[in-house]
């Protein structure tokens, strides 16, 4: 039923959001990795030449059945993402969504700058925070998390369940694409690069792509102390020697805020962890000085390189018990060791995997893409951001 001609700018139905502003987090101890058996490595069996910017060649890590094609190596989901991204978001979706309502001005500005009638693709849309932000545009959102997509659908958004590394969209029809706080959940450089390629593929010539990722250079160092750097055990199991982690010039950790990280936690526990982490850091730093010739990329030297270079983290999420019971997934998660109960806080603690980006890394990731150029780059609220234009 048509509602009559109007110059109405809103042309699709959208309900308001209800919000609560409970923001939580705290420190959570490193998980045992005994349950991580199968891993995938992007330098596995393919042996194919990698896109520019990768680390020097090292013997590939053979993992599991290793006769997959190069495309499947990139597009199959590694275990660390299944366990520490997908399952976590599925379990925490409603609670997570309730904390995700503030629109980041830079993203709003980008979306509002688009021409009326633009088709906007939000890859990794989460709870749909940005869908429909510009009422003159048509948004299609996708996310790998069905529970998050359900939240979007319940709000009247046009969404689908899909993988950012392999978007189900035709080539070249979008006017713009956005990837807001998504790529840092991809555990290999090749997957991150594939996701960027997909964003560019789906927009038209002249279309724009906005990407934002968490920065290693966080504005608030106290928050950084709540993150658990992945230990050597994890590195061995899922990264292996020759990890294509980008080596950036060491920059001192500056202290600025993390936009989407949560905080709270008992003061005592935080202090205890901070002390422990500080000790660990000073130990690593001393080791670093002793091993200043760490030119080879052997595993030992990767970890000894020290915390300034650390980019792989687990960031905790505290799911309050009453939320966990509603979700149901948490009982399984605790039983399987994926999450821990914290009775003192009355919450189930999950870990989310992040590869935080160092300065220049995002640019390096997009360099070498022949049909797109960088039109803007900035650091904002502890995120590295980039805007690309597809030129052919």
């Amino acid at each position, binding site marked *: 039923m048509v*509602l009559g001609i109007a110059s*109405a700018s809103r*042309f699709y139905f959208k309900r308001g959001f209800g919000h609560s502003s409970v923001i939580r987090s705290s420190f959570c101890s490193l998980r045992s990795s005994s349950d991580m058996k199968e891993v995938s490595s992007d330098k596995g069996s393919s042996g194919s030449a990698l896109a520019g910017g990768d680390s020097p060649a090292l013997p590939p890590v053979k993992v599991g059945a290793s006769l997959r094609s190069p*495309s499947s190596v990139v*597009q199959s989901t590694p275990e660390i993402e299944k366990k520490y991204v997908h399952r976590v978001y599925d379990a925490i979706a409603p609670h997570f969504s309730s904390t995700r309502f503030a629109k980041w001005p830079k993203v709003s500005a980008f979306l509002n700058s688009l021409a009326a009638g633009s088709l906007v693709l939000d890859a990794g849309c989460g709870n749909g925070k940005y869908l429909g932000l510009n009422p003159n545009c048509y948004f*299609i959102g996708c996310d790998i998390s069905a529970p998050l997509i*359900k939240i979007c659908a319940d709000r009247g958004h*046009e969404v689908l369940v899909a*993988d950012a590394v392999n978007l189900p969209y035709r080539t070249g029809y979008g006017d713009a694409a956005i990837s807001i706080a998504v790529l840092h959940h991809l555990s290999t450089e090749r997957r991150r690069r594939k996701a960027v390629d997909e964003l560019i593929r789906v927009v038209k010539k002249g279309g724009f792509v906005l990407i934002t990722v968490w920065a290693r250079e966080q504005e608030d160092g106290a928050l950084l102390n709540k993150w658990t750097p992945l230990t050597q055990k994890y590195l061995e199991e899922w990264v292996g020697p020759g990890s294509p982690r980008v080596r950036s010039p060491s920059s001192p950790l500056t202290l600025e805020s993390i936009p989407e990280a949560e905080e709270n936690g008992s003061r005592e526990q935080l202090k205890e962890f901070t002390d422990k982490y500080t000790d660990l850091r000073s130990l690593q730093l001393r080791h670093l000085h002793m091993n200043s010739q760490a030119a080879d990329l052997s595993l030992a030297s990767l970890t000894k390189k020290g915390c300034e270079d650390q980019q792989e983290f687990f960031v905790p999420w505290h799911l309050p018990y009453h939320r966990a019971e509603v979700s149901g997934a948490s009982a399984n998660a605790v039983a399987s060791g994926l999450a821990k109960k914290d009775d003192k806080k009355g919450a189930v603690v999950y870990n989310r995997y992040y590869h935080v980006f160092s300065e220049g890394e995002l640019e390096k990731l997009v360099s070498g893409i022949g049909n797109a150029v960088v039109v803007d780059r900035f650091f904002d609220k502890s995120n590295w951001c980039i805007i690309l234009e597809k030129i052919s």
Partner: protein
Amino acid sequence: MRLLTHNMLSSNIKGVTNGFPLRIEVEKVVEKSVDFNPDFLKNMLAKIEYKALVEASRIMGYAELPDHAEPSMLESDDFLRKFHHALMELHLEEGTLVCPQTGRKFPVNKGVPNMLLHEDEV
């Protein structure tokens, strides 16, 4: 899932070169009103694959769209409203999207398509 969205979707299974349009199998269609916006519609007409829209709308139970669209038809309010209805107001609530090349079925539940592939399809 609106037909505008359907018009943007393609099967992304490895090796598929002819993944568009996905064939629709209908279980439930719902109509939801949307504000009429002629400028938006004109922009979209240039973008979409019209033939796929016509076929899809017929499968969804709406047979009013003409087989072909000429640019001059954009001046016709009658055409625009039919176009608007097909593109924006018909929702596949329950059903299946089928890859035209492989026959692989992607489910649509509560209006949401699930386009995730299995390990052996990537």
